[in-house]
């Protein structure tokens, strides 16, 4: 059954919402979510007052985790800042699929400069707004894992180190997707990408490489660092809301499956994100001033194989009759190390 809920009445704090009516479909099911929760605990997305910062009609692939994560994150930021948010975007899928004029999806002020400078541009926007007396307008910068962990890393570290008043959100789909799925320093070991082909004696991405950006962010001792996942959108919103209550440099690293790049079914985006969390491969935690302050416990631990097997980028690990038990064990060891490091299970206290 498709039915429109009460027409949106945009709150005065959310001027952008006026530009498009928020529609909900499938009311009466659990899709709207949180119907059984008290109003305070419901997600921002469940409200007709949401800013709808990235409106419908953009060109992301079906099942794009990045589109989902960005929409939840930006709307949560909009609510937290009373509708006064400026977004800065690095080059990448999010920038490309949301913008071509005249179909820009952004209903909030939005700026894209180049691939490697979003953190610095955001610092400049924040400074410019301060100097113009607009102290209540907040700045959210965003980029993919490539722009964040590789080409924009210097600018990001500078923004952190200066403790500029910017919330930076990395949408980590574990490769350079916009240019056709090349390896980044966030690509996991064994993953096949266009530049780490599943060929030779050690197919896919090399083990023992890559960098852990949330921990690097923590090393800057900035006020707030968190990891989040589209598997738990409630948690993502809560972390964005928390970050928006803090001044200074903040960093949220969101795990966002990419059906195209991962070779996964578009209906599996949330499931894969959840399996990454529940295997321990993508730990969810928060840190303040360099110290971990909270972790999300794994409810039901799953073997990494459950997460890896549905993704064609790992297919070479599961060739019938030639299962790569050695590499699978190495990936399992990574997950187990995360579980120990962050105390992700009940048995493993923080």
């Amino acid at each position, binding site marked *: 059954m498709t039915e429109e809920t009460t027409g949106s009445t945009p709150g005065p704090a959310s*001027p*952008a919402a006026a530009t498009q009516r928020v529609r909900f479909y499938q009311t009466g099911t659990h899709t709207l979510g949180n119907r059984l929760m008290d109003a305070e605990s419901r997600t921002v997305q469940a409200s007709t007052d949401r800013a709808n910062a990235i409106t419908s009609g953009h060109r992301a692939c079906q099942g794009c985790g990045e589109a989902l994560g960005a929409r939840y994150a930006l709307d949560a930021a909009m609510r937290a800042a009373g*509708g*006064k*948010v*400026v977004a*800065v*975007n690095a080059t990448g899928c999010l*920038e*490309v699929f949301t*913008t*071509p*004029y005249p179909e*820009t999806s*952004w*209903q*909030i*002020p*939005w*700026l*894209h*400069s*180049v691939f*490697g*400078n979003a953190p*610095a*541009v*955001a*610092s*400049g*926007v*924040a*400074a*410019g*707004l*301060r*100097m*113009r007396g*607009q102290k209540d*307008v907040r700045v959210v910068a965003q980029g993919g894992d490539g722009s964040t962990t590789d080409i924009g890393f*210097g*600018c990001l*570290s*500078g923004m952190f*180190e*200066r403790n500029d008043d910017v919330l930076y959100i990395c949408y980590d789909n574990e490769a350079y997707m916009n240019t056709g799925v090349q390896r980044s320093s966030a690509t996991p070991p064994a993953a096949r990408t266009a530049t780490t082909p599943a060929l030779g004696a050690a197919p896919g991405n090399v083990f023992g490489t890559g960098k852990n950006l949330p921990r690097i962010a923590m090393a800057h001792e900035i006020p707030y660092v968190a990891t989040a996942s589209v598997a738990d959108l409630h948690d993502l919103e809560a972390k964005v809301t928390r970050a928006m209550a803090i001044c200074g440099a903040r960093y949220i690293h969101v795990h966002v499956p990419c059906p195209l790049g991962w070779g996964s079914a578009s209906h599996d985006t949330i499931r894969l994100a959840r399996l990454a969390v529940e295997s321990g491969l993508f730990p969810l935690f928060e840190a303040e001033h360099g110290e971990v302050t909270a972790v999300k416990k794994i409810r039901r631990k799953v073997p990494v194989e459950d997460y890896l097997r549905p993704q064609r980028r790992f297919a070479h690990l599961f060739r019938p009759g030639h299962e790569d038990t050695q590499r699978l064990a190495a990936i399992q060891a990574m997950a187990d190390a995360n579980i120990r490091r962050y105390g992700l299970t009940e048995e493993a206290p923080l």
Partner: protein
Amino acid sequence: MLKQIEGSQGMAEAIALCRPQVVCAYPITPQTHIVEGIGAMVKSGALKGCEFINVESEFAAMSVAIGASAAGARAYTATASQGLLFMAEAVYNAAGLGLPIVMTVGNRAIGAPINIWNDHSDAMALKDAGWIQLYAETNQEAADLHILAFRIAEELSCPVMVCVDGFILTHAFERIDVPSQEQVDRFLPPFAPVQMLDVANPYSIGAMVGPEAFTEVRYLGHQKQIDALDVIPALAAEFEAVFGRPAGGLVRPYRIEGAETVVVALGSVNGTIKDVVDAERAAGARVGSVTIAAFRPFPLQALGAALAGVRRVICLEKSLAPGLGGMLASNVRMALQGSGTPVHTVIAGLGGRPITRDGLTRMLQAAATGGLEDVTFLDLNRPVVEAQLAAARRQRHSGPIAENLLKAVNHGPGPRRVPDRAAPGQTAPQEAKP
């Protein structure tokens, strides 16, 4: 107020009078003193309403300026040489977005070989990034051009690069008339952006544009520069009315009446050129010069008019387009289309090589007797070059050129064998066949 100060300090004071709101700084000689000066004024409280940001690279400096400008703030930064190239992507981006940022370039050579001294290679490398490029001739003009630059930039919503010769202007102590705040405020109104990140009126800036409109966006960027050909002289006239002295403009001819040979150049070397013109005129030679004050937009008509009827033009260029010769000359030829006037390139002053009156006089005399080639290198040390060429012909493994030349310059260009650098167990480098 008259002050005997370093050129950089004069610029810093002029920039501060323009009430910048965000200034980004990253150190590179020879622009460093300018941002240090502004930083000190922000820190002491002398410059209010301005945020001074120490960034981690020139790329970040330009990027912060882009963000600040898009947020509606007056933004400034400075750089030179390697720093300008390091920020190149963002330099193009600022122009593409139409953000009226002002940047000083303390002109300096580009490595390798690394060299901190003055030439114009840096600004020339980015001459077509879409920025307006103004070149200062004196310390007074270096200060004044910044006031003009903010006004021009904001009038057109186009970024402006103020090019000042490294050391020659940035580090020289000269008498500078620093204007009053009241004068600057009269000339430069508060920044009224044509586009801005505004929560009350949200739109996207920097969206992707495909083939259907990209040419038109570029055309409008070009048109802005064409408009600047009118805006620059008009504002220069207004500047003179407010401040009582000339600054900027498009071209400044000097003693070109009846001149057969005219030297065209950018920046501070025009001072020396004018001295030589005076001396040669006194000796009866029919010579003159033209200072190009705005290189982008290129003042085709104004220059064409100034050079009408001359026998030959010499472009004295502090940069080199390897494989072609002169960038200035190839632009100047556009202004002389159809006239048949020969345009010579004289490459001079690279990496801080002094451009002397003697050298310029010899150049003019060679030109008068028809002895000037299309592309000449002023005061080139021929024997050293020939020795290196010969060594390279003799020997395959002839070693790093810069090191060889320094040895030759310091010890004379005698034939020398480069030490054998082959690793143990490898065969010695082969002699090249002639």
